[in-house]
């Protein structure tokens, strides 16, 4: 709808940009942005305005303010991965996905916060501090929470965004942008999407270019899309998907952007409910919500069947081995020689490397590097890495079998519970948290399948709960069509944020989930 507003001149790109920028300033306490590119954003907005005046917008995304997770390379704008290792690093090139968005006229507001090098499930372990879930300050949450103190300062029992793309999720959720890029390796887009009440899409591996996305696990990473509604996600997907010669893991087939039909008849649909996703630790509240959703489909005429993905319980361990091994490899380039932080220690090359890496990486990163190198040792390789690859194959085959049996889409919870308060979350270490929180999301990464979080309902604490749909390889159209139908049925409420209401001049107000398409 915002795109339509831009087209008809109800609002100009520069107005839109300025509003977002000022909203970013008033929601600074969320710590969603690491870098705000005010000058360049305004320039982009002005250029967009010129195009609209001439009646020649580049497309639906022209003039739309967006944010990008800080592990995507952006030329001329700092890219830090929330790490001391890349503090001050200004990349000379744009990631392909960033370039595509800019080529469509999108306005890049800034780089969002994350867990350091995308390692984590809370967006709490970056060097710029944790990201706060905007819902912590929503009327809905405040109404439900037990008043702890009478102070009016912004220190309620704030909850986490989830991670690692927490900054992007918070940015979209708090209306400071209309869409954001995240990354998803084990759930890093879907998890924070669920906690922040936004749509989080993980596309099929190989559909969208990873060139310029600073890798965590090359064989599982995908750029993720965060928006306020499913239609918007489809639009962004349409502008990003397709073969990139710079990324040899993208498929060659031509991609045709699609518009989502308004599905009314679900009787031909088969929804699979994997029983193993009734995971230990799943809150009874979410179990109920999941059940209700299944009923919703059944009552509407869809075929809802219980299915089994028997190797689900091995996925965490398998993921741990493969992830840390690739991390150990991918982080080897950070030696302080060519770019990034370099230690003052200069007694020898080796000592410089060691000091640089100790100073540049946090404990989480270093822990994973050590584990990964252990698994890659000659004497361990067969036992761990090769074994894990075999298990990965089994996990992927589980999905193949289920989809072959006639199921179109799987319906699962996205998270084990609603967002935890920060003080609770940090009681356990990153590794423990990741292992717990990734269980529902990372099998999709193992299998390379597309998956999407759709905000469903508010929990008893007034916080968002989302459900996940997992689709067949490269069948994003079907996946998003089902997701859109579901979204329409559940009518997830809009966040009631004071700051947003203050800035709202009608643009955000009318729609349930202020979308741009």
């Amino acid at each position, binding site marked *: 709808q915002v795109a339509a507003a831009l087209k008809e001149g109800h609002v100009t790109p520069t107005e839109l940009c300025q509003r977002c920028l000022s909203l970013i300033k008033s929601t600074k306490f969320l710590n969603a942005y690491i870098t705000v590119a005010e000058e360049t954003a305004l320039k982009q907005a002005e250029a967009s305005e010129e195009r609209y005046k001439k009646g020649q917008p580049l497309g639906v995304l022209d003039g739309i303010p967006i944010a990008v997770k800080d592990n995507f390379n952006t030329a001329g704008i700092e890219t830090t991965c929330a790490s001391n290792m890349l503090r001050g690093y200004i990349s000379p090139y744009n990631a392909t996905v960033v370039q595509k968005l800019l080529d469509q006229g999108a306005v890049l507001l800034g780089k969002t916060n994350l867990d350091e090098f995308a390692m984590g499930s809370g967006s709490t372990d970056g060097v710029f501090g944790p990201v706060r879930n905007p819902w912590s300050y929503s009327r809905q949450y405040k109404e439900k929470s037990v008043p702890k103190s009478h102070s009016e300062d912004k220190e309620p029992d704030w909850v986490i965004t989830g991670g690692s793309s927490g900054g992007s999720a918070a940015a979209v959720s708090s209306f400071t942008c209309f869409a954001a890029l995240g990354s998803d390796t084990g759930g890093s887009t879907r998890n924070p999407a669920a906690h922040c009440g936004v749509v989080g899409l993980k596309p099929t591996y190989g559909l969208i270019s990873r060139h310029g996305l600073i890798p965590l696990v090359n064989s599982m990473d995908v750029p993720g899309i965060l928006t306020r509604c499913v239609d918007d996600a489809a639009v962004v997907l349409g502008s990003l998907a397709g073969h990139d010669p710079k990324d040899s893991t993208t498929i060659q087939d031509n991609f045709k952007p699609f518009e989502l039909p308004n599905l009314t008849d679900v009787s031909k649909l088969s929804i699979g409910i994997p029983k193993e996703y009734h995971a230990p630790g799943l809150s009874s509240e979410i179990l109920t919500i999941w059940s209700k959703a299944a009923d919703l489909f059944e009552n509407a005429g869809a075929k809802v069947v219980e299915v089994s993905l028997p190797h689900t319980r091995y996925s965490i361990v398998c993921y741990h081995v493969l992830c840390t091994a690739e991390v150990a490899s991918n982080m080897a380039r950070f030696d302080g020689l060519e770019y990034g932080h370099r230690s003052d220690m200069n007694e020898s090359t080796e000592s410089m490397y060691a000091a640089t890496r100790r100073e540049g990486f946090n404990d989480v990163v270093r822990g994973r590097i050590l584990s990964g190198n252990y698994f890659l040792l000659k004497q361990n*390789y067969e036992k761990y890495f090769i074994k894990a690859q075999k298990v990965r194959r089994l996990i992927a085959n589980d999905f193949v079998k289920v989809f072959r049996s006639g199921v179109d889409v799987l319906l699962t919870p996205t998270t084990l519970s609603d967002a935890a308060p920060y003080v609770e979350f940090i009681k356990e270490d990153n590794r423990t948290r990741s292992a717990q929180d990734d269980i529902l999301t990372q099998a999709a990464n193992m299998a390379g399948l597309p998956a999407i979080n759709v905000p469903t309902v508010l929990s008893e604490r007034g916080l968002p709960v989302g459900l996940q749909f997992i689709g067949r390889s490269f069948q994003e159209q079907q996946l998003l069509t089902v997701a859109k139908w579901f979204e329409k049925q559940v009518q997830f409420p809009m966040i009631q944020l004071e700051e947003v209401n203050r800035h709202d001049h009608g643009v955000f107000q009318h729609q349930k989930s202020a979308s741009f398409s």
Partner: protein
Amino acid sequence: LAPWVPVVGLEIHAQISSNSKLFSGSQVQFAAPPNSLVSFFDASLPGTLPVLNRRCVEAAVMTGLALNCSINKKSLFDRKHYFYADLPAGYQITQQRVPIAVNGSLSYSLCIDNKMSQMVTKTVRIKQIQLEQDSGKSLHDDTRNQTLVDLNRAGVGLMEVVMEPDMCCGEEAAAAVRELQLILQTLGSSQAVMAEGQLRVDANVSVHHPGEPYGVRTEVKNINSIRFLAKAIDYEIQRQIEELENGGTILNETRAFDSKLGCTISMRDKEGKQDYRFMPEPNLPPLILYDAKSLPANMNHQQVINIDWIHERLPDLPSVKREKLVEQYGVLPEHSFTLLNEDGLAEFFENVVKQTQMKPKKVIGWILQDLLSYLKQHSLTVKESPVSPSLLADLLNLLEKKEISSTAAKQVLAELWKGEGKTPLEIVKEQKLQLLEDQKELEQICQAVIDRQENE
């Protein structure tokens, strides 16, 4: 004392002759200003990905076919990890699990007793050929306690050719490498100039008594020419024999060849056993090659490599060229070796033959003895020869027509060598070297000489 059997294997790295690097678009060029040929990927900037260079794959396939290898229709890329200043990513992309070509052979010839009259053919098995990245260069500035890193070479495509330990001495290794060099140059897959680092050879050397298992082997590195290769290997064989005969043991280590001292030195400070933590390269799908049979009908021609197509277009390999020379011109086999051994000499020879009536069997003597020795004396390549094929042909024609004697011809050649632009005929006239057939004239000269004699 029981005899010793030396065993020599080789690991040869040949730089692929291509415009751009193996996985990135930056240029391949020798002696460019430091760090002027470095792409984002070469510098290991975060987020960059490798993209395979088609030409490099073709070069490897050509080389594999020329060495009688089986080309693996599916080969894989791996990461080999170690930290070093000239390896920006902290790992090298190579082919450890399944290389592009395996199980080939290389035939080479040696002359027995240095006589060039008796040549014997030997074969060495080629274990495999793999594609991998070259590293950058690091220069250690000890005075300022710093290391300077030039990444121009980082990422250049290499073919690693592994020769099984079928050789027994420096001479054999040198001959094998020489033949490989010629093959690579003929194919154009590598310029293989050792002095420019385009061909690097490491030797694996061990000794044992016949009937006993192979001894512990050492790896000898830092060999900069084929001559030094033979020297280094022979030295190492001797060193090992002496060590063992004195009751010592051989360590499985890397040794550097010191060309000034003519010996190998232990590189013990470079830790022997390194665990490279090999891992599949996740950003490169398996490399699939096709042949005429397996090529799918609707494949985009640009995207595939057809092994059979490459096979059909292979040029004549040195061994074939030599055979043809022997067949066509009737020269001896050992002559054909020398002709091919000098860059451009075979062409020179053929050019002369075309332009002269003298039989090739006679021409060859002039080429291999006279011309070649002049070139060697003055350290010139065939291309730099002041005597062109036409000039030599003219000279040989004079000789053939019996207008001058062979002694005179040699004199003329010496004069031609000065490169003053005179033709053979002009020189003959100048120096009055013509053979005289005229009876009367001869009588006059003889009489004159006799007269002179009498007067003294």
